[in-house]
């Protein structure tokens, strides 16, 4: 256990290196006639953390359990390090216990008939490590997760956070090369969840294990991972760094999932000449375009791969917190995309005021500052910066 704090620098340096450590190829799995995974491919570089993000039923947990060997896919190939653990063609299917991994379960799965120490020491005991060494390694890893002196305690009557720590300690005590997390924080209350998220991040940076992390919470995925994989209907919908995913989602589904809560269908009304309106426009050509959404005209930029056409059906997306709200008639000359509307509903959230505003033909979600004195029925002016909008081509769907 001596090297537990030392491996850090090496593995952080390797982060993002080209060698994939976990390689998932064309995985398919169905439960009866219900398809759960419909050809999933991705790589996880050594020492990095990848999140599988998606709504419930998207197949993320099935994918994780397939890597763990707890589900058997119908087809495809999974390798961990230099060993192929599953290959439907070569009929390879290594049992879970031979895959040399650690895993934290959603329900923690802390064994109620064992003490905390016995729970954590289990992977070592199974590996026939001498009792004396187990004892010292369990003590080390318990202090690492903040449970000093809990070894002798019964594992019943632990709080959710403590159970989570026990499960985490058990998953890393045998220094596995790969640790899997199945929604580990979803059973904790909000405050504890944030705290554990930070601790998990620090621990991971220190120990440098490769991690695959399943969650339905976008914040968690953004906070913890080097790469986020968004899954939908058993397919990989997007794979990107957190920053890229958050600022420039590639599909309306992903956009919606990372907080673009205003999605409107419309079509392209006019196309301006490509230009570098933003200072660092280099290879990416941005066309200023006008989009007509239900009679309203919005100005924005086209960043798609194919050039924009007049009349092209598109989906326009923007975040509610980027909508500016001002009293009616208070127009700002420099703002484009300004519309008059009536406040339909307001929900006070402390920091924010979550409003639904109806313009002539659109219903817009907008977040105002918490101290604004807006009330339902008020007339307001809203504006959306052209650069805050993303336009998705809808002609293929």
């Amino acid at each position, binding site marked *: 256990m001596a090297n537990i704090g030392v491996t850090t620098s090496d593995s952080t340096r390797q982060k993002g290196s080209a060698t994939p450590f976990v390689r998932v190829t064309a995985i398919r799995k169905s439960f009866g006639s219900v398809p759960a995974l419909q050809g999933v491919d991705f790589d996880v570089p050594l020492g990095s953390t990848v999140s599988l993000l998606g709504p419930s039923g998207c197949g993320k947990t099935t994918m994780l359990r397939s890597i*763990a*060997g*707890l589900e058997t896919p119908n087809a495809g190939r999974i390798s961990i390090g230099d060993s192929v653990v599953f290959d439907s063609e070569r009929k390879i299917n290594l*049992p*879970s*216990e031979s*895959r*040399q*991994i*650690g*895993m934290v*379960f*959603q*329900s*923690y*799965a802390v*064994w*109620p*008939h064992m003490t905390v120490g016995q729970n954590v020491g*289990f*992977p070592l005991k*199974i*590996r026939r490590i001498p009792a004396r060494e187990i004892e010292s390694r369990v003590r080390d890893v318990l202090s690492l997760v903040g449970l000093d002196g809990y070894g002798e305690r019964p594992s*019943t009557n632990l709080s959710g956070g403590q159970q989570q720590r026990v*499960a985490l300690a*058990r*998953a890393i005590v*045998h220094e596995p090369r790969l640790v*899997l997390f199945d929604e580990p924080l979803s059973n904790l209350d909000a405050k504890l969840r944030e705290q554990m998220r930070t601790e998990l991040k620090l621990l991971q940076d220190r120990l440098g294990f490769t991690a695959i992390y399943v969650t339905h919470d976008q914040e968690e995925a953004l906070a913890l991972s080097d790469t986020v994989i968004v899954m939908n209907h058993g397919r990989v919908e997007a794979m990107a760094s957190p920053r890229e995913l958050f600022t420039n989602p590639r599909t309306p589904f992903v956009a919606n999932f990372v907080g673009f809560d205003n999605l409107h269908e419309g079509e392209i009304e006019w196309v301006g000449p490509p230009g570098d309106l933003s200072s660092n426009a280099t290879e990416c050509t941005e066309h200023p375009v006008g989009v007509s959404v239900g009679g309203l005209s919005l100005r924005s930029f086209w960043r798609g791969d194919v050039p924009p056409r007049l009349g092209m059906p598109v989906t326009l997306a923007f975040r509610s917190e980027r909508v500016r709200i001002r009293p009616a008639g208070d127009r700002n000359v420099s703002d484009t995309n300004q519309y008059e509307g009536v406040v339909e509903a307001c929900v006070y959230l402390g920091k924010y005021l979550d409003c639904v505003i109806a313009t002539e033909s659109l219903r817009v979600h907008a977040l105002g500052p918490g101290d604004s004195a807006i009330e339902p029925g008020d007339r307001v002016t809203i504006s959306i910066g052209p650069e805050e909008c993303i336009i998705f081509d809808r002609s293929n769907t």
Partner: protein
Amino acid sequence: METRNSNARAAGLCMPSSHQVVRSRHVIFTFQMLPGLAVLIGVILVAGPFVATIVRSVVAGPADSVSLQNFTGLLSDQRFRAAVVNTLITGTGATILSCVFALGLAWIVARTDAPGRKWFDTLNVVPFFLSPYVGAMSWIGLAAPNEGLLNHAVSLYLSGPDDFFNIYSLWGVTWVLSLFYTPYVYLFVIGPMRHMDPALEDAARVHGAGFWLTIRHVTAPLMMPALLSGALIVFVTSSGLFDVPLALAAPRGIHTIPTQVFSLVQYPSDYGKAAAVGVFVMAITVIFSMLQRSYMRRRNFATVSGKGYRPRIVRLGRWRIAALAFELFYIASGVVLPMVALVLVSISRLWTGWPDLTQFTLSNYDEILFHNDLARRAIINSLVIAVIGATIGVVLSFLQSYYLHRGKSRLRPLLDAVLSLPLGIPGIILGLGILILLIRTPLYATLWIMLLAYVARFFPFAMRSISAMLLSISPDLEESARACGASWLQTMTAVLLPLMKPALVAAWLMLFVVFIRELGSTILLYAQGTETISVAMITLGERDFALVATLAVVQALMLGTAFLLSRWTQSSLVEN
């Protein structure tokens, strides 16, 4: 008066005026005493026979003086010591064997892809509904030396001796007890087996334990509390069972404690000595139940959580056949073969150990149903006692459960322990206590004393299942009714009782089944005219085995009907 009533009713549901509050408080006071009253009755039912037995056990000698003579006499009694040893052999054997059966069957049904699992889940509990005495009778038909069906088959097809199986032995007793007590353990372990969080086992696999190591370190220890509870019940009840040893061991002069008590009460009777045996058994029961309570307190972890876990199914591959064979073996031994043997015997003019088509007749049924006074009286008596007894038992145990789980008395743990005592006390010991208690009252030799014995012996069983349901219903539901202004009685009838209906119906059917077949608690209490079916079988058994088999088939049909009803109501009640 009428207007006041309707006012009270209207006000009861929303805003009571001060006038009606006073009035309804008075009503609440009386009705709310019911649970406490039921507990009191329960305590008397348990304590009465207990105290009577203890008092009688220290009275000995021609002068009825107080002494420990009965106990010292018992200790030096060779026959009693042999009976203790025999009881330990059959009880331990039956416990081990039924645990093996139950674990195997439950695992196959809950955790494997063996064929026909849904069917077996139902079939596995069928022996629970048959009476062990009927089981013993049918196994006589199957494995009696020289005249058993199986022995005939052995000599016919395998040219073995035709006394290859000898059911008249301690092995026979153990075998029949195991078959018919397997469902007890099965019902205890199938729940945890099915609802255990599969992640607990997955976690072991992922962290390096293979199939067997996972079973050893995780599955088995987690099943242990349920298994031990089931095993304890089987040990205590099978050791205390009177009918099976009476049918299978007593004819060869082999005695267990219950048959020993029976012969002590027969002429020339020695009540003092019988009571001493009773005290001995009761002491053991109390010690056992205290041990169990302290064990369960230490391991009160819940493997069964409210979540609907889907257990991981083990793919057996070619072992599926072995699993199927194991299931079939149990169902054949516990249900099919016994029923076949009974029916064959009951329709044979003369049973010679092998069915003879030319000798088939329905005359036995004609005799039992239409001519034999004893049998007809017994059927009516059994039905009457079972229906009334089950109803009283359910009302009593519902009120007791309510008191124990919703009441505020600080005595509840103690009362719970006292009311649970009959779970472990053999029927014949409780019957003895009631006999000693009431022999000089007008109740003696009536159906009422039988009813009393039945209810006293079995209400804790109903209380168990009703309590389980009550614990799963949040008190919020009742409190919100009270908050709306409903009285205690209105809350009971409008909220709690409808919610409890499935458990109440299930408990009623269970008591009905138990009362139809019970023998031990009434064998010392019946008199001319108050015989039950099980008593009639014993009396008839001295003359004609075919008539016993016929009556057994009739009893099995009644029990089968109750079983089908319980399955049917369970599904229909749950759907609602």
